[in-house]
């Protein structure tokens, strides 16, 4: 399975995602410059975290015009997997590949810490190895993770089972105090209707090894690989 990690000016989790795909999963992986307009050789495209274009104006607002984003949209249309983490999630929202928008964290500060998350949907290519209701511990690190969508949009997300991760407490309850940024209904990650584009604020690439941040992030990466293998066996 071939991974492409898109590098925008200002991306900074690109090396972490590359490490995850290449060293931890052991799959062929390339960095892909944002000016590339052909991504057809990749089975999974990763939009990494960071501050593309400095996050000036709005996070992801400028990056979404990169030639690579055109190619990402095409790949998504063809059913390829697209994983947007943190800034990558924000870019997917700005690009309209996922619904909703990101506001400043409600406390206005950047927040870096490890949080509990509840897996709401284990039927996606990104989470099928998990259990519904399973609690994960994943690092977050962002200033703009306060997810917003209007009521109609929210109803639609729910109807299509598009909410994948919610911030929760240690017992799995999505309480207000377990919400690190004010996100609507504690939403931390969603998929598109088709289920092949996944955006999330937490960083699964930072939780792959015991020595650095635990191993709960493996669920996402391994699910991706197994899903692909299942479809290409």
């Amino acid at each position, binding site marked *: 399975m071939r991974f492409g990690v898109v590098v925008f000016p200002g991306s900074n989790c690109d090396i972490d995602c590359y490490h995850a795909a290449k060293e931890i999963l052991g799959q062929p992986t390339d960095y892909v410059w944002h000016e590339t307009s052909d991504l057809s050789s990749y089975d999974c495209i990763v939009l990494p975290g960071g501050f593309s274009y400095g996050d000036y104006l709005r996070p992801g607002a400028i990056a979404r015009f990169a030639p690579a984003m055109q190619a990402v949209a095409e790949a998504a249309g063809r059913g390829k997997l697209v994983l947007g983490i943190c800034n990558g999630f924000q870019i997917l929202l700005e690009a309209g590949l996922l619904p909703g928008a990101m506001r400043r964290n409600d406390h206005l500060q*950047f927040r870096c810490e490890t949080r509990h998350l509840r897996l709401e949907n284990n039927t996606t290519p990104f989470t099928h190895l998990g259990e519904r209701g399973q609690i994960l511990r994943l690092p977050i690190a962002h200033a703009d993770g306060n997810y917003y969508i209007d009521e109609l949009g929210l109803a639609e997300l729910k109807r299509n089972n598009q909410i994948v991760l919610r911030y929760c407490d240690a017992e799995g309850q999505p309480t207000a105090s377990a919400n690190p940024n004010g996100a609507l209904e504690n939403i931390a990650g969603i998929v598109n209707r088709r289920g092949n584009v996944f955006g999330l604020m937490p960083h699964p690439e930072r939780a792959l090894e015991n020595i*650095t941040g635990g191993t709960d992030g493996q669920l996402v990466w391994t699910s991706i690989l197994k899903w692909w293998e299942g479809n290409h066996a």
Partner: protein
Amino acid sequence: MLKHYLEPQDMHSAQRMGLKELEWELVLEKLGHTPNLTELGMFAVMWSEHCSYKHSKLALRQFPTTGPRVLVGPGENAGVVDIGDGQAAVFKIESHNHPSAIEPYQGAATGVGGIVRDVFAMGARPIALLNSLRFGELDSAHQRHLFSGVVSGISGYGNCLGIPTVGGEVYFNQSYTGNCLVNAMCVGLISHDKLARGKAAGLGNRVLLIGALTGRDGIHGATFASEELSDSSSTKRPMVQVGDPFMEKLLIEACLELIDRKVIVGMQDLGAAGLTSASSEMAARASTGVEIDVACVPRREPHMSPYEVMLSESQERMLLVVEPSRVAEVVAICNRWGLSATDIGVVTDTGAVRVLDGSEVVAEVPAQALASAAPVYTPAMQVPSWQADVQKLDLDTVPLPADYSQILLALLGSPTIASKEWVYRQYDYQVRGDTVVLPGSDAAVLRIKGTPKGLAISVDCNSRYVYLDPFRGGAIAVAEAARNLAVSGAEPLAVTNCLNFGNPEKPEIFYQFHQAIAGMAEACRALETPVTGGNVSLYNETNGKAIYPTPTVGMVGLLTDVTKRVTSGFKQPGDVVLLLGDTHDELGGSEYLKVVHQLERGAPPALDLVREKALQKLLVAAADARLLASAHDCSEGGLAVALCESAFPLGFGADVTLENVNQIRLDAFLFGESQSRVVVTTAPSSLAALKDLCEQYNVPCRELGRVSRDTVVVRVDSTTVIDLPTEDLARAWKGAIPCLMSQ
């Protein structure tokens, strides 16, 4: 009509720019003619304290600066130490105190930007940031504004760069009320063959300016940093500089690619004194000259004079020296990263920095004169009149506490001791995926991908000790920084330091400065950790009142096997708790005296460097033999606070009994800050081996008790003096700063 920047100047204008009468005469001598405004401005910034170290140079010679691992010592942009396998660590610390006092967010942000440029200018990939911060007490709204502004500035800039901010320290003390301190440290990683030098070598080579446009930022910032703040500073301040971390990120990537492809001859960041300093230093290092045409310099603002262009301190710029045949390649790489790269001059053999504006020569100054001919002063020193008095402490007048639990809670809630999570949760401390020990332990530890190794890093300085006794305080700062590495299992390698003091022209301040360095130097020699660089920030005074002398020590250590790192938190109930090192009847300079008795006096704790060294060797050996479950040094708040801080990470407790303490006051035993002490835990099965090792290294070791489930209990013989749920203690410790900051 003569353009103003060409007008010949006189002594009065020299004085207005901060030069002294004798310095003016020296300028005339070095130059051989009367300087025009541009030339004089160039001298004024380069001969400012900030750039020339004219008051501090001699005192700094006390530091040991060589050692088997030192590849680059003081004098370059950053120090470099060998860490084996052809790799090296590059690191430096720098102050941004004055800009932060005026605009905390931007001041701190640009401070981070500056130190990061110093590190990648050496060709190294920046891999970690730390910071040392000091403010007045948090009961003042203005101090809270400074504190939160500085932290968000560091966060805003460092996070955007994708360099993890992995550690630091924060102190609150009235001495910093008018003069906060913001010291930022950066650590980079490089392979030996990539080391870049800031040299303008090679006659005919081109000089390129890359990065941000040049504006009227911080003109005379360097001289400003060398002046005391006064109530009128807010009116004469230079323009606030705004940092652009996005631009800096592009600069990092472009510069590292240039190094990687070996297409440049030399590289230097533009910091204080901007183009003047970068060009003269690069030429001086290579014994060449440079010619720069300011008309070529891309600008952000119209109508800038050559004087302004040469002195601008606009951020996020680098100067490159490139062979003519490779200019196109360099420009292409920069452009790919979205950066402009402009050919602004050439390397000459004249030994001069020659400034042109188109075809007109507007300044011509010998590079050596600018970079290294500033006068060197031997300031007078005198023991402060109050020094002996503040060291006096009659313990008989300090009543013993009635309730030790209450005192412990008060100490844990003192902002200087309290958890700094409010700070570091605003920093991305995990990006790049190598942070193995996160903020909250004694030292940060990063793994080095592709090797079994790890780097440990800490910054430390208890400035109250330095105020009470500069020599001992300086030595303790070094010892504590090294100890924080050793408790993490790392061998301390080398030191960078940031010397924050008052006005050195006052004999009492210079005494502090000189003595603190002497103390640091002695500790550096004893611990075999040479100084590879640093930064001096003087004139930290407001309306004549100086800060506590604050020589911040940054240190880097090496773990040969990163999986053997040790953290401060207890790991398992039933583990044996031990105290390594001796406790003395000492309370001078302690946080306990300040918080509980409102006293900041007494002699700081004694430091025996032979014992310190033995302790540190033992710690590294014990970590290497995997005998330690946890290790945490006793610093502010002493043994009792160290026990609590070890209990907090996993929410365990401690059940501890102190015996044979009769000759030492109980408050001194519990809250005193005797040096060279560490609380460690070990599995019962490793106890014997650990004790043997202690004996072998001649380190006193006292068994205190066991790690327990969830309560901290301290008994003295059979009397219980502290008995509190860990949860309650943790609440006081964790809640203190958030609570103060939400006022």
